[in-house]
């Protein structure tokens, strides 16, 4: 399917783009979360720091995947093999179904498995292991066996030039599977907190990490061990007119759009980072929807059967009498993720802003 070399050269392209074009080419402006004081870290550093803490905190913890040993194609596991040994931080053969199955077995014994799938686009060979096995282990055995101590780290999302197989956001496929936890961080502080929470959580978890944020997102990240609550959304901006819901990179698009809507249109948007896709924070979304009466959901993944569909149907069911307009979804189109057409594909700030105008005028 792919070789380390390709991924590696791809990484260097990504890195050079980050350096030279990150401002001109990216479709979002990063909004850091302020949270006390800490060390300035990008998302790669924060994830590395989280795994460092997890490995030192729990002697049974193992970290593995393709090219994880030398530090990973995105450098997330850099130095960890030297620090914890090649028995605990190691390369697997190039086989996603093997990585997932192996992780389940490690977790069956009660040891902690942190498994990396190099790109979310390549998680599908392990779909069977994740859906039929990991998600159902506890249930089907009546609680005799489980694989709760496993966590998958999976780089996902648009990156400017990733085309079909380095850009996908497959969260909705997994959201349809009872037994899994699925989360998406929006930046370094969240990435560290969510990863540590998932590693500790007694259920199989998938952390989809928007890879475009790996280096673009920088925050003051606390150095100590902390966890971010799973299943809980974050209200990042309070407003009374429209609720904007997104996750991952899209949160930053929505924050910028909310600012523009306020400045140019005097529309007050509430911006919510859903954070957890499964189980998701119904309470936060319903409360906000009831308050504003207007909801826009935005995600990079295609429209049809995207996770936005689930949110929209639940919002109309639970907030029907409060809605002033139909719930609007601004998403990727129902096409594969294209290479040169990426600027026209993404649910960018212009499309989101149009949606706000539309929903307010309804």
């Amino acid at each position, binding site marked *: 399917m792919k070789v380390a070399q390709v991924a590696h050269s791809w990484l260097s392209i990504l890195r050079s783009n980050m350096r030279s074009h990150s401002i001109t080419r990216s479709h979002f402006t990063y909004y850091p979360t302020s949270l006390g004081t800490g060390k300035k870290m990008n998302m790669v550093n924060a994830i590395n720091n989280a795994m460092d803490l997890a490995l030192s905190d729990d002697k049974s913890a193992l970290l593995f995947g393709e090219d994880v040993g030398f530090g990973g194609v995105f450098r997330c596991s850099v130095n960890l093999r030297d620090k914890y040994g090649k028995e605990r931080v190691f390369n697997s*053969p190039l086989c996603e179904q093997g990585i997932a199955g192996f992780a389940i077995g490690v977790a069956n014994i009660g040891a902690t498995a942190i498994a990396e799938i190099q790109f979310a686009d390549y998680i599908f060979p392990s779909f*069977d292991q994740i859906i039929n096995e990991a998600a159902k282990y506890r249930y089907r055995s009546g609680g005799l066996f489980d694989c709760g101590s496993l966590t998958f780290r999976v780089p996902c999302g648009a990156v400017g030039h990733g085309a079909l197989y380095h850009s996908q956001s497959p969260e909705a496929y997994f959201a349809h599977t009872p037994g899994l936890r699925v989360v998406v961080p929006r930046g370094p502080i969240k990435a560290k907190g969510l990863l540590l929470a998932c590693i500790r959580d007694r259920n199989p978890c998938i952390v989809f990490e928007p890879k475009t944020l790996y280096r673009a997102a920088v925050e003051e990240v606390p150095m100590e061990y902390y966890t971010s609550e799973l299943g809980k959304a974050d209200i990042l901006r309070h407003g009374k007119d429209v609720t904007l819901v997104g996750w991952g990179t899209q949160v930053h698009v929505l924050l910028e759009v909310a600012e523009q809507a306020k400045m140019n249109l005097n529309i007050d948007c509430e911006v919510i980072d859903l954070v957890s896709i499964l189980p998701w924070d119904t309470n936060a979304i319903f409360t906000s929807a009831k308050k504003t009466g207007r909801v826009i959901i935005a995600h990079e993944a295609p429209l049809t059967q995207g996770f936005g569909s689930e949110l929209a149907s639940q919002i109309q069911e639970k907030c029907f009498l409060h809605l002033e307009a139909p719930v609007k979804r601004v998403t990727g189109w129902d096409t594969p993720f294209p290479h040169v057409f990426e600027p026209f594909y993404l649910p960018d700030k212009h499309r989101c802003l149009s949606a706000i105008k539309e929903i307010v005028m309804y």
Partner: protein
Amino acid sequence: MSFLRKSMHWMGAVARQRQHLKVIRGAISTAARDYSSEPPNDFGNFPGAKAPFVSKLNLIHPEDYAPIPIYRVMDQDGFIADESQDPQLSREVVEKMFRDMLLLNTMDKILYESQRQGRISFYMTNFGEEASHIGSAAALEMRDLIYGQYREAGVLVWRGFRIDQFIDQCYGNVDDLGRGKQMPVHYGSRELNFVTISSPLSTQMPQAVGAAYAMKMKPDNDACVVCYFGEGAASEGDAHAAFNFAATLGCPVILFCRNNGFAISTPSNEQYRGDGIAGRGPMGYGIATIRVDGTDVFAVYNAMKAAREYVLKENKPVVFEALAYRVGHHSTSDDSTAYRSAEEIEVWNSVEHPISKLKRYMVHKGWFDETEETEFIKDIRKQVLKQIAVSEKKLKPNWREMFEDVYDEIPEHLVEQREELERHIGAHKDCYPLKNFEK
């Protein structure tokens, strides 16, 4: 080729069958004949493989290798060919082996019939493969962790899973350890270190490898993992993943293939073209390999003993192929005479049957008593029939358990869904089989 030699050497030590070893070595030297005419030490310096150069174009054919021989201790008449291979098991152990095989066989016959009568929804028998279950289980320690496919109930019998536990699972009643959530024969036992069976084939294979790795990491580990699978399942991608991960990551796991000739209706010659599953081990994945007669309980026992010792000592895997014949239908949803002859089945159900072979051995030893056997089978029949009557009358678990164990704790949305169902059932009590379920 040295790793092949090494593994063959090991296999030879297990089997002490010099004769067979000669055959293999002969085969290897046939394949290597062209290499040997080259100047020595003219090796390629490629990272991908260590091998000599040749200047003659030569396609390596599967026929260049002799098939991996089948290790056998006892012939079909129950005689031990090479006394040095007699495991010298006590009468007590041999009798337990025999009784456990009979128990499994008798229980299978009745549960199969009870499915035909519509009393349980589904069943899969173990006919013809009793020796590979019992022989392998007997060579292991209870602390060794088992991952199975679905046709390994004999391993559970050996470990002490009770008749009531088998039958309660098939009925999915309140006493089913799996809480009625899976189809019949999907057994599991934490106490007996037997990981719960699931239907998707081969998924357990890389899991067993991961478990073996995690166990290896424990200080002073003295337990291994055994993963059972059929030759059909070995065609799945997960089998490839498991073989390769086990080898590259050095995992103390025995990958135990039950090669019974059929995957439902598909004969093994439509499943693969190589030398069975064993043939993939040494050259394909660099794994020490053994092939045994799976109808010979002593051969399976000896080989498993040696395999267990090897995986724990070396922290490396073993590929273990037990050849047998699936005497029964694939499952209660299958009529196997649609794709094979009744005459063929009959041979494997009589002269070549593992229970008959062990019985003949016991006769030679003077350990077999026909009346005792008849009494034992009668007693098991009685127990199984009685248990069926008891198990089918037991209530099913409370329907609310449907929402439990999805996660470690019931999340809010599932609590709401359970409440919704509660309200619905409250209003439509007559529409649901509530009296069959625990309150």
